């Protein structure tokens, strides 16, 4: 159950106002959202065999990670459960596409392997980018940025509540699990016969709790439609526009010139 506690902690971690304080905090959340969306679009648009091109996109993740002091390795291991389903995405390619494209030493590299890796890379990069965004601007900052982009208040509220519901649900699972295992010592996990009532009770209790959370938000003036300033008040217009233009420019460049190939052949020229 400690793993559940870790997950709850991680979700809470994100549900806060921007966690950056340096120059980064002067970048408007909207700029971050736009750049992140640009990153996702570019990443997804790479051709299935263009692993090298895709890898060049990691520049964004590295620079953001270093600049904003996000522990990249720790994030990777924290997100690893999300990567599992992504692995399966590429599996079919591995089986059906067996044309050998080139040899790495004596190991044949098939199109399937390449496209499976590319797909996996796209998945991992997207998850990382989304996670970075959330860490940098927080769930609330994200919601405000979405409102500014013209997403309707109702939709944004649903997003926010789904997020909060997830936290409530995990906490409730943890609570009920503890109560259950205390009364059924010796059992590992929950007896199969008890699953139905456990799930039913869980649903009812977590929905009650989620309603309370929503009410608590309403009582404290949340109306889901107005754009309120949080840490945005610290943001600078100039730096935000510059940030957006530079990154979008970099993405465009990486997408249109095969950077890694160029570097490779350039290095190759010396060898």
């Amino acid at each position, binding site marked *: 159950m400690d793993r559940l506690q870790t997950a709850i902690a991680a979700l*809470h*971690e994100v549900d*806060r106002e921007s966690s950056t304080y340096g120059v980064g905090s002067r970048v408007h959340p909207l700029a971050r959202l736009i750049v992140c969306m640009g990153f996702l679009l570019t990443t997804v648009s790479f051709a299935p065999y263009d692993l090298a091109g895709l890898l060049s996109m990691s520049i964004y993740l590295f620079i953001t990670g270093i600049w904003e002091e996000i522990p990249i390795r720790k994030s990777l291991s924290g997100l690893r459960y999300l990567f599992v389903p992504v692995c399966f995405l590429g599996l079919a390619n591995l089986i059906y596409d067996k044309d050998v494209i080139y040899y790495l030493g004596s190991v044949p590299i098939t199109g399937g392997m390449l496209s499976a890796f590319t797909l996996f890379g796209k998945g991992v990069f997207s998850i990382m980018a989304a996670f970075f965004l959330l860490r940098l601007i927080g769930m609330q900052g994200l919601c405000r940025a979405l409102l500014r982009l013209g997403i309707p208040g109702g939709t944004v509220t649903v997003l926010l509540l789904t997020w909060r519901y997830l936290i409530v649900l995990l906490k409730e699972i943890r609570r009920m699990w503890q109560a259950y295992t205390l009364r059924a010592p010796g059992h590992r996990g929950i007896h199969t016969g008890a699953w139905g009532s456990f799930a039913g009770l869980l649903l009812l209790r977590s929905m009650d709790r989620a309603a*309370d*959370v929503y*009410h*608590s938000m309403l009582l404290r*003036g949340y109306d889901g439609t107005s754009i309120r300033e949080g840490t945005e008040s610290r943001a600078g217009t100039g730096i935000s526009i510059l940030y957006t233009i530079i990154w979008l420019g970099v993405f465009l460049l990486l997408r249109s010139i095969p950077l890694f190939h160029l570097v490779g052949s350039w290095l190759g020229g010396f060898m």
Partner: protein
Amino acid sequence: MERETENNKMAGRPEIRTEHLTFSYDGGKEVLSDLSFSVFRGECVGLIGENGAGKSTLLKILVGLLPGYQGRAEVGGLQVEKKYLRQIRTKAGYVFQDSESQLFLSTVYEDVAFGPRNYGLDEKEVDRRVMEALEQVHIEALKDRQIYRMSGGQKKLAAIATVLSMRPEAILLDEPSGALDPGNRRNLIRVIRELPGTKIVASHDLDLILDTCERTLLLGEGRLIKDGPTEEILTDEKLLSAHGLELPLSLIHRSR
């Protein structure tokens, strides 16, 4: 001019008032029946009754969480209805029974700042309000603490602070001492006594009521059974046991 007359009216009026208040959830059986009472500015009133008596329901109606009641319910001179909700929610704050429901952000500071930020205050004013609220419940030191790492007692105080930062004129506490150990409970009693403004404390912890409220309302199955001085009601063993409650422990010790 208009504000002047508004103030004058309010001075002579109770802070919280209900008249023939009747409520049922989704057309089911009546949970509150024909409830009439007033609470005046600065009073601390206990709301007692056994489980299911309707205490939480009453408090939630007063802060506008349960629309569709019959009769009247007023807070700060305003009828509890949709068009006044925003004003009413700055006048009266509700502290949930379960602090976990009330606290949904990561740190104490963030959560206490949530209300003031929603009301569009600038960060300087938000900061002032947060610090003031934390001081009122004596948890300034916990400002940057992660909420999920705090004890039940600390969470309760933080939950109260989230309401205080809205600077309400009245504060409604729902079973505030539930699930607290004796030490935290004593601390909570001290905090409640120090809180400014009008207070309603709903609880079946009668010792808590005895220590904090001068006046008590006894609810039984949604009806107002008795309204009077706390000492008088809480010493009436027959009345209490008829409504599923027991004499406060401290009074039992006193009489034996």
